[in-house]
Structures are given as structure tokens and as C-alpha cells.
């Protein structure tokens, strides 16, 4: 029997990013004993890196904004593949969630009348992102971290113990979820302390997954080491399903030079505040890349685009602020056609558009980042930027209202959940997503625990199996050369980057799958040196299991979806396909292999949008995405059909 430290909680939240903290606050406020477990220190989660802002239609800067507009923008950005109910809840609840942060002590930048200021961002019709300079994520994390402390202080006043009801387990990694043998419901979570390498078991009927993304499976990424897709893989192994895994967002502007910082994000706020993209010929090329579905919504000349910054009523926005997938593809094409910058990116120019003081005031961390890391003074020179793997739209399939997955007791929120953003996420919609669905997951878990008549049971054999899996990398391989986890990781990243990256082709994805299979056999031979105390090689070996599962899910789903949409671009199927719009690809784990289970992908029909929401859109716009059959449900469908005929007549004339 393995030696394990045991804890008993009502809810275990895995992840201390925005989603996890918000879920924990909710669960504790609902009276549950809550544990928050995270891989890094408390307050360091990936959310600190978010820069631009948090989208919420508060209408502080432009009073025309409301949830309907936000909802429409979100659906458009996701190319109508989004789970419409999630998009609806998100748009409706985001303002309340942001205001709530102020009651926790957050200090957002202000408008002249003292309200929360909002900034422009790609794909958002109005200035909508609540922000603090370019360190919004830090503000979010710190605020919620401090809210948690304040809840702990309340508990201290009452019980004399800060951690009586809410405890943070920092630098503790969960490696497996445990389920009840008879009901299949969640019974606990198993993990290890990074510091000591000792095992720890949480017995709890409800687990909220808030582990973030998968970017570390790609070579060029804005993501940190934490993003190994743990939540995705753990959920799969516990019997949950993932959706939309083929959609991976490549942020158009990552740093490209020097090599060691390649991929680090350059916030979209640079463009939101006036920065423009230029190619090596000095041309603002984005005007050539406005796709048909967005024709008419964006400025057609640089002059109009420039006027838009000051007068948004009478001008259309600059195409520099198209949704991220469009901009990333445009940059990719410019570079491919030889109009790139010296280090294989394009230029992002803010220096010629704003005074040095203004730049330093509005974008302090960007100024700092380029100055420190690249020796570039962005108030004098343009930046060099190129696409970088940034966000995964896919994730654990959940019920929109309660955030529960198909496994009873397993909830998910934040980047590791799927559906909300469809095929492409708008900037700023993630931070609001974390707050809205973090809270809902906390609530869902509380309701679920309240409704239980019996606590699911942890099986000792499951605990032993989990411990065995975790310790596997210390055993020398049965046969063959031992593998170094670092090398294996690099090979995986290279494979995903080259073959399942921003532009995909069937034969390349097939090749990727072959390589993944081969890498998986090498995975079996991974050996780590040293002992269990704070051993990064061992930690990586454990994370690799998860990265392999997630990578396979991405590749398999990408192969199956024969169209291009949002964060999934197929060179061999470059068009949107209305049939695919209503189809989701659902991944689940097969039980062929204990170490790295295989992935099975199935199609599933997307539930049609509720009629009142459907009618929020212009039928003409919908016609770019929907099948005729679906459109017939729209009240204006007849007039569209008539107009279509008339126009067809005009063209002939």
C-alpha cells in the first residue's frame, strides 16, 4: 500500500487561476469546505499573464453597448460554433462579475466620470474591455487571491483557524481523478507535493477543473509550463468528454526575436490603442485580408481606419482589429509571400502613431518587455511580431448552466472547459469567461454536493494504481534505450508546431499522428534521474502523459473536420462549411493503454440556437454561416430569399 497524505473536502478546485479562484470563492460562500490545489505558487497562475482586459458590456464608454451586442460579437467571433447558451450567460453576467471584483478591492482604470474604463479589442463592436494598463490578469488574480485571504480571515475570527473552510494547496499537482466504482461519480483526486514528492489524496464528492490550456504541446507559444493540458487529460481518463479540440488559437502577435523569447505575447491592446500592422514594404496589409463574412464591417482605407479611433459612430474600425484567426492567417501569408520582417514576422508599429509618454503610460509592460528582452524601444521602433500558440477553444464538455461534465461531480470552468468560444475566442472574453463560469461551477458543485445522499467512495486499488503510474519514470525501461523527458517534450512540440499548427493539411496531420504514436512508445522508456524532492525532470515526465493525450485529441479532431473555421485552418478545405457548423467533434479516451490512453473522436449534432437569440441576428449575416434549412426558421428569411433573387437579377442585367 502506498503512503499517502489524506484530506477530506466537500469540493476540490484544481487550478488557482481566475476560474479556479472564482469557483473556490463561490463554493466557500455557499458554506462548503473547499480546497484549492495548484501546480505553482498561489497567485502565480497563468491568468497573471493576461494583459489586455476583461470583456463586459457595461456600456461605460459607449452606452450603446449591451449584452445582446456582446453576445452577437462572441458568436460571430466563434463563427457560430459556440455553445449559444454559454455565450448568452457569459454576455449577460459578465458586467456583474466585473463589478463584484470592485467590491473585493480591484482598481480598474477609470473613465472621467469615475466608472470603470473600457478599451477596444479585436472583434468587439464597442470599447468593452475593463482593464488596468496592460496587466489586467494580474489585477484579477491578486484581487481574488486577496478575497480568498479575506474569507480566511473571517474563518479565523470565527474558528481561530485561517484554513478551517478554505485551504490552498500550492505547488501540489493532481495526476489522477478518482471515481466511485458503482456510480462512476467523482470520489476524489490524487496528486503529489512538488516540494517533497510525497503523495496526497483528496477525498471529495465534487471536483472543479480549472487547469487552463494546452499550449506547451506547441513549440512557439505564449503559454507557460503549466499549460500541459492536465485538466483535459485527467477528465478524459475519468470518463469525461472534450469538444472542439481542433480549435487552437494562434495569437497573431507574439514576439519573434530573439529566439529565446519567441512566442511571448504582445498584447492586442497595442492594436486596440492605435498600433498598426505593416509588412516589409511599409504597407498596412490588413486592408487586403478582410474576409467575405466581415465585408462591410471594417474600414476600407487607412484614412477611415484612423478616423475611427476618435469617431466610432461615423467610421468603421480598422481591419487590424479583425478576430485573431483572421489576423494570424494574414500575417502567415505575408511572411510566406516574402514580405515579412528580418526575423520572419511582420511589423507592429505604435512608435509613429503616438507620443513616447503616451505609449509608456498606456502600455507599460509592453515597453518594459521589449526593452528588457529584445533591446527594442517601442516608442522609437516598430516591433517584430508573428503568430504564437495562445489559447485552446476546446475543452471539457459541460452543461452551460451548472458547468458539470458528463461525469457526475466533475465540473469545469475557464480555458479547460469547451464550447463557450466556438471556433475562435475574442480577446478579453476569457477573463470574463473565468469569472462567469468559475462562479457557476462553484455553484454547480455546491448544489450537487447538497443533493447527494451518499458520498462516493475512493478505492484503495485506484490510489495504488495512480501512485504506480506516477512513479513509473523512476523505473528503468524493460527494453530499449532510456529516454530523456526533455528531449521527448521537444520532439512533441516540434511535431505539433510543424504538422498541426496554424495551417493544416490532411497528409501532415496523418504524419503527425504517426509520429505521436512513435513518441508514445518512447514515452514508455522515459527515465528520470534523482529523487522525488522537487525534481523537475520527474514533473515533466508526469505532465508528458497528459500532453500526449491532448495532442492526439487535437490532431485527430483536426483531421476529421474537413473545413476551415476560426482556429482550425485546413489548406485542403479552405472554406467554411455550413454543414460542419452544427457539428461538434467529441473526444473521449479509449481504455487500450493505461499510461497514455488513446483518443476516440465522434460527431455530435449541435443544439440549435433558441429562437429569441437566433432572431437577434440579421438573417443576411446568418446566411453566411447557416444552411438554408436552418435559416428557414428566421422570420426574415422570406425577404432575404426575395432580395437574393433580386440581386441575382441585377447582376445579370
Amino acid at each position, binding site marked *: 500500500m502506498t503512503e499517502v497524505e489524506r484530506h477530506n473536502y466537500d469540493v476540490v478546485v484544481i487550478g488557482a487561476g481566475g476560474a479556479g479562484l472564482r469557483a473556490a470563492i463561490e463554493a466557500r460562500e455557499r458554506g462548503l469546505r473547499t480546497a484549492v490545489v495548484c501546480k*505553482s*505558487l498561489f*497567485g*502565480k497562475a*497563468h491568468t*497573471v*499573464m493576461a494583459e489586455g482586459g476583461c470583456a463586459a458590456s457595461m456600456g461605460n464608454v459607449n452606452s450603446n453597448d449591451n449584452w445582446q451586442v456582446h453576445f452577437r460579437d462572441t458568436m460571430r467571433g466563434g463563427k457560430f460554433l459556440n455553445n449559444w447558451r454559454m455565450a448568452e450567460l457569459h454576455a449577460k453576467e459578465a*458586467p*456583474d462579475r466585473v*463589478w*463584484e471584483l*470592485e*467590491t473585493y*478591492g480591484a*482598481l480598474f*482604470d*477609470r473613465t*472621467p*466620470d*469615475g*466608472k470603470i474604463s473600457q478599451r477596444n479589442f479585436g472583434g468587439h463592436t464597442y470599447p468593452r474591455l475593463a482593464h*488596468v*494598463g496592460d*496587466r489586467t490578469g*494580474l*489585477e484579477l488574480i*491578486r484581487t481574488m487571491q*486577496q478575497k480568498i*485571504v*479575506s474569507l*480566511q*480571515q473571517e474563518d479565523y475570527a470565527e474558528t481561530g483557524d*485561517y484554513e478551517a473552510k478554505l485551504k490552498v494547496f500550492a505547488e501540489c499537482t493532481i495526476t489522477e481523478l478518482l471515481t466511485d466504482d458503482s456510480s462512476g461519480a467523482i470520489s476524489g483526486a490524487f496528486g503529489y507535493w512538488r*516540494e517533497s514528492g510525497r503523495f496526497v489524496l483528496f477525498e471529495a464528492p465534487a471536483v472543479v477543473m480549472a487547469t487552463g490550456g494546452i499550449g506547451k504541446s506547441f513549440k512557439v507559444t505564449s503559454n*507557460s*509550463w503549466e499549460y500541459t493540458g492536465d485538466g483535459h487529460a485527467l477528465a478524459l481518463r475519468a470518463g469525461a468528454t472534450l469538444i472542439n479540440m481542433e480549435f487552437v488559437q494562434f495569437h497573431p502577435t507574439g514576439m519573434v*526575436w*530573439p*529566439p*529565446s*523569447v519567441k512566442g*511571448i*505575447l504582445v498584447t492586442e491592446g497595442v492594436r486596440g490603442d492605435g498600433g498598426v500592422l505593416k509588412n516589409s514594404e511599409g504597407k498596412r496589409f490588413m486592408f487586403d485580408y478582410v474576409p467575405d463574412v466581415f465585408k462591410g464591417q471594417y474600414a476600407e482605407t487607412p484614412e477611415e481606419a484612423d478616423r475611427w479611433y476618435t469617431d466610432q459612430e461615423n467610421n468603421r474600425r480598422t481591419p487590424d482589429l479583425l478576430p485573431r484567426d483572421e489576423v494570424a492567417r494574414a500575417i502567415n501569408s505575408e511572411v510566406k509571400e516574402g514580405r515579412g520582417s528580418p526575423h520572419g514576422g511582420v511589423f507592429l508599429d505604435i512608435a509613429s502613431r503616438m507620443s513616447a509618454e503616451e505609449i509608456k503610460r498606456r502600455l507599460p509592460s509592453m515597453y518594459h*518587455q521589449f526593452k*528588457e*528582452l*529584445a*533591446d527594442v524601444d517601442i516608442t522609437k521602433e516598430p516591433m517584430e511580431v508573428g503568430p504564437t500558440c495562445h489559447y485552446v477553444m476546446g475543452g471539457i464538455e459541460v452543461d452551460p448552466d451548472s458547468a458539470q461534465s458528463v461525469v457526475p461531480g466533475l465540473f469545469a470552468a475557464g480555458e479547460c472547459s469547451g464550447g463557450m468560444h466556438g471556433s475562435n475566442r475574442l480577446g478579453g472574453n476569457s477573463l470574463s469567461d473565468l469569472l462567469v463560469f468559475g462562479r457557476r461551477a462553484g455553484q454547480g458543485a455546491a448544489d450537487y454536493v447538497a443533493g447527494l445522499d451518499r458520498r462516493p467512495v475512493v478505492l484503495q486499488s485506484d490510489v495504488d494504481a495512480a501512485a504506480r503510474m506516477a512513479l513509473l519514470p523512476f523505473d528503468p525501461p524493460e527494453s530499449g534505450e532510456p529516454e*530523456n523527458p*526533455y528531449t521527448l517534450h521537444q520532439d512533441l512540440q516540434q511535431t505539433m508546431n510543424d504538422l498541426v499548427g496554424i495551417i493544416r493539411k490532411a497528409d501532415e496531420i496523418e504524419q503527425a499522428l504517426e509520429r505521436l504514436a512513435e513518441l508514445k512508445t518512447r514515452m514508455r522508456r522515459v527515465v*528520470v*534521474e*534523482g*529523487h522525488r*524532492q*522537487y*525534481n*523537475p*525532470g*520527474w514533473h515533466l515526465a508526469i505532465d508528458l502523459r497528459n500532453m500526449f493525450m491532448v495532442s492526439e485529441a487535437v490532431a485527430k479532431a483536426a483531421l476529421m473536420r474537413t473545413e476551415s473555421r476560426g482556429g482550425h485552418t485546413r489548406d485542403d478545405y479552405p472554406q467554411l462549411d455550413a454543414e460542419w457548423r452544427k457539428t461538434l467533434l467529441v473526444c473521449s479516451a479509449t481504455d487500450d493503454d493505461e499510461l497514455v490512453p488513446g483518443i476516440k473522436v465522434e460527431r455530435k449534432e449541435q443544439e440549435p440556437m433558441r429562437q429569441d437569440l437566433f432572431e437577434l441576428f440579421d438573417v443576411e449575416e446568418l446566411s453566411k454561416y447557416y444552411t438554408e434549412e436552418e435559416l428557414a426558421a428566421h422570420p426574415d428569411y422570406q425577404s432575404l430569399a426575395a432580395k437574393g433573387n433580386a440581386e441575382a437579377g441585377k447582376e445579370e442585367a
Partner: protein
Amino acid sequence: MSYIGQFRVWRGDSNGGSLEDFEVEVNEGEVILDVIHRLQATQAPDLAVRWNCKAGKCGSCSAEINGKPRLMCMTRMSTFSEGETITITPMRAFTVVRDLVTDVSYNYEKARQVPSFQPPEGLAPGEYRMQQVDVERSQEFRKCIECFLCQNTCHVVRDHEENKPAFSGPRFLMRIAELEMHPLDTADRRDMAQDEHGLGYCNITKCCTEVCPEGIHITDNALIPMKERVAGRRYDPVVWLGNKLFRRNRS
């Protein structure tokens, strides 16, 4: 443009340890953390190091480089000469866990002792109104990424372990200042700053400011203004006299 650099890295744990020599390849544009990663991937796979963002945003990778407290991910190799031997050690004010990783729980304990934001009663969410000029001072302090380099450098605890219970360190004295300057906070933390968090231990020698990677003016904008606020409350002769008389009356 790459070269072989000379490095000395501290390895060990709380029972003891030593500086070990390594030769590692260094490429253009790299930072110390890149070198440490290369060291892990090629020579010392179990070298313990804490990091997250590699972009100076999370404050995880604090260490001491040639004796100076710094973020490993923001220390560029180009600031050293090629022949120089670069020494990398863990932070020296905290208990060491292993190699470059230290136990920073002191900071989390102190964080928990600062009474939280107290909004005015009856102010509903969405009704908060604050002017930009009123939030700016606190916003500067909220840039803090909690790297704890200031805590590590402050001689009050770095050189005197026994002061740890009485002194919360610059980071958390600054947190008190942040709340004191928050336009909507209603609590008064001045006495507490002096009595429970040890503001008086700070002798304003500014090492915290010197090492802060966020460039926060900790001493000038947070600690000294806090000392002035405390002085206004405690060491103003008129206030002092008032307190004395008031107390005498009561007893």
C-alpha cells in the same frame, strides 16, 4: 554568436550544499533562465528551479545572480561579459527547499495578517465611483508581482531571522499603504502598521526599491508616506497629548 559560458550554481538543500561549476552554451538574446533550462535538459535534469511565465509577469523565478537578487527570466546574458563566471544561488533570506527553490511561506503568512479591503457599507456593486487620480497611487503598488525579492533583500529579516515574527517586510507594508490610499477603503491600519507589522523596523535604506523588478517606488511612495501617516497619528505632540488626556479621563 553562441559561446560556452561559465556558471556556478548552488545545489543542495536545507542540510547543506555547495556551488557547482558548469559550462553551458549561451546563445544570442538569452536570459539566465534559458541557461538554467539548457542545464536541466543536458546536464542536470533534476536541478530544481521555480518558474512560470518566463516573461517577468508572475514573479516565480527569483534568485540571486552574482549576489544580486533578480528575476532569472529578466536577467539578460548580454549584461555579462563572455569570460565572466556567473554565480546563481537561491534567495538567501528564506529557508531553502532544494537547489534554487526556496520556501516562501513567510510571505503568505504575512499576507494573511493584513486586514482586507473594507468597502463602505451599503455601496452596491456597480455603484463604485473612483477618479483616476485617486486610484493611481494604489495602482502602482498593485503592479507587484509578488516575486518577494524585496522581502529577500530587506536586511531587517535577511540579516536577522529573529525579526521575522515582528516584521512583515516591504511587500506587505506596501499592501497596507495600498489599502490606506484606496479611495473607498474605510478601515484605519496605521496603528497596526506600526504595532503588528513592524513599520518601525524599516530604516528606509531602500534596498527593496533597488531590487524591485517592477520598478515600484516602494520606499518613497509607500513606506515613507506610511511612516508619515503613522507619525501624524502617533508622534504628533498634539495628538499624543490628546490621547494621554483622553486615556486619563477614562481611567
